[in-house]
């Protein structure tokens, strides 16, 4: 068992598609709670495979997309200080701030380095004791325990030139905001497996309890997603909304207790801005007082001018699932993956990037077949 190919078996996928098509339903909208689900679904061509009455919509699950422009502006401002190295997860460097991305800032001469992990950033700090090393901390509970663990390691090793920014987001807080807002129309939620391995299935109980929506935690291979859609439609048919775990090989009710413990040890909950939502109460994490020596905000007193999102860009609405890429006047014209305007086009897991690529493939197929 390699836990990948077995769950991509084309024969099994075909059988599952057939079963999904046989279930009775009418115009069902399924929100994919994570960019990775959408990416896997697009790669497998699920949208075309499934009956037209099941529409897959992309919600706000992608951390690069919900990270606000202010987080990027803040990192750019910090990089302008002398003797400062800014480190960030590789995928974040192209995300636009108010006026530019970190990639563009790097081209201007800023010392900005893409890293694979927070541990790598800490090692850069240890190797460069004469400089301050900042790690731009973004992402959900998949990532935040790895950062918490690194902070404890930094303290143990007595590292004094290492700092992180405030950017971690509590995954479920976005869906609380989304459902509270009541704008998005969908009949069920697919939640991504990786973050759920940490937070556990109980974290989603409010979805069926308060909003009467079915919810399935899914693995990210083709057959996983198909089985999860089948489970969601079954729940709808039975009219008994609940949280079900399809990705049972990695997710349980409680989640990863060691990871949750270390998160709680290092961080406390705070209000935080999210792209598309504004400031959301209790949605972010900041370092607890006993670790505040690693808080970049305590060292770098950055006063940001008002954050600007690109005018006319509807990424905020796309993230909230109330509009789609094709509603945007820039989509595929001024805004393409090579010259993106908004985060949903930058991120390969973002809705606009996925829609752009799949519409290009469909266009080619039309032209050549």
């Amino acid at each position, binding site marked *: 068992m390699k836990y*990948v190919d*077995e769950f991509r078996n084309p024969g099994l996928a075909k059988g599952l598609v057939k079963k999904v098509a046989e279930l009775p339903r009418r115009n069902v909208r399924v929100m994919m709670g994570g960019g990775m689900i959408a990416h896997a679904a697009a790669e497998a061509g699920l949208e075309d495979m499934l009956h037209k009455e099941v529409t897959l919509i992309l919600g706000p699950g992608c951390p690069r997309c919900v990270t606000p422009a202010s987080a990027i502006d803040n990192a750019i401002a910090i990089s302008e200080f002398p003797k400062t190295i800014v480190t960030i997860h590789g995928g974040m460097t192209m995300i636009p701030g108010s006026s530019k991305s970190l990639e563009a800032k790097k081209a201007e001469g800023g010392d900005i380095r893409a890293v694979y992990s927070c541990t790598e950033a800490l090692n850069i700090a240890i190797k460069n004791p004469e400089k301050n090393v900042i790690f731009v901390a973004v*992402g*959900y509970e998949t990532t935040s325990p790895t950062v918490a663990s690194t902070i404890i390691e930094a303290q143990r090793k007595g590292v004094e030139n290492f700092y992180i920014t405030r950017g971690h987001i509590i995954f479920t807080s976005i869906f609380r905001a989304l459902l509270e807002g009541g704008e998005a129309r969908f009949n069920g939620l697919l939640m991504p497996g990786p973050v759920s391995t*940490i937070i556990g299935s109980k974290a989603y109980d409010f979805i069926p309890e308060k909003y009467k929506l079915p919810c399935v935690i899914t693995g990210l291979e083709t057959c996983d997603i198909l089985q999860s859609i089948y489970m969601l439609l079954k729940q709808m048919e039975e009219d008994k909304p609940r949280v079900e775990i399809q990705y049972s*090989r990695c997710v349980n009710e409680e989640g990863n207790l060691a990871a949750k413990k*270390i998160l709680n040890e290092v961080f406390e909950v705070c209000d935080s801005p999210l792209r598309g939502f504004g400031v959301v109460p209790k949605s972010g994490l900041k370092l607890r007082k006993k670790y505040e020596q690693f808080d970049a905000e305590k060292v770098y007193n950055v006063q940001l001018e008002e954050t600007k999102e690109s005018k006319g860009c509807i990424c905020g609405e796309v993230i909230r699932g109330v509009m789609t890429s094709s509603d945007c006047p820039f989509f595929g014209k001024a805004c393409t993956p090579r010259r993106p305007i908004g985060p949903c086009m930058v991120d390969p897991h973002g809705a606009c990037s996925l829609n752009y690529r799949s519409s290009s493939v469909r266009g080619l197929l039309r032209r050549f077949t």
Partner: protein
Amino acid sequence: MCVAVPAKVTEINAETATVDFGEGTKKDVNISLVDAKVGEYVLVHAGFAIQVIDEKAAKDTLELMEKIA
């Protein structure tokens, strides 16, 4: 960024383990967040193992898929 990849634990040294992603790709990862043993598969994200993959649950899921399909 949220990508988590399955890999097999081949060696453990205190909080660090060497894991094999297949096809010869090996990497050292931090295993302090999980209780993993040599030979087990873990889910790796940003240099950390974030969960041990339950083989029995995986087999049950495949069986159930086959039953549905």
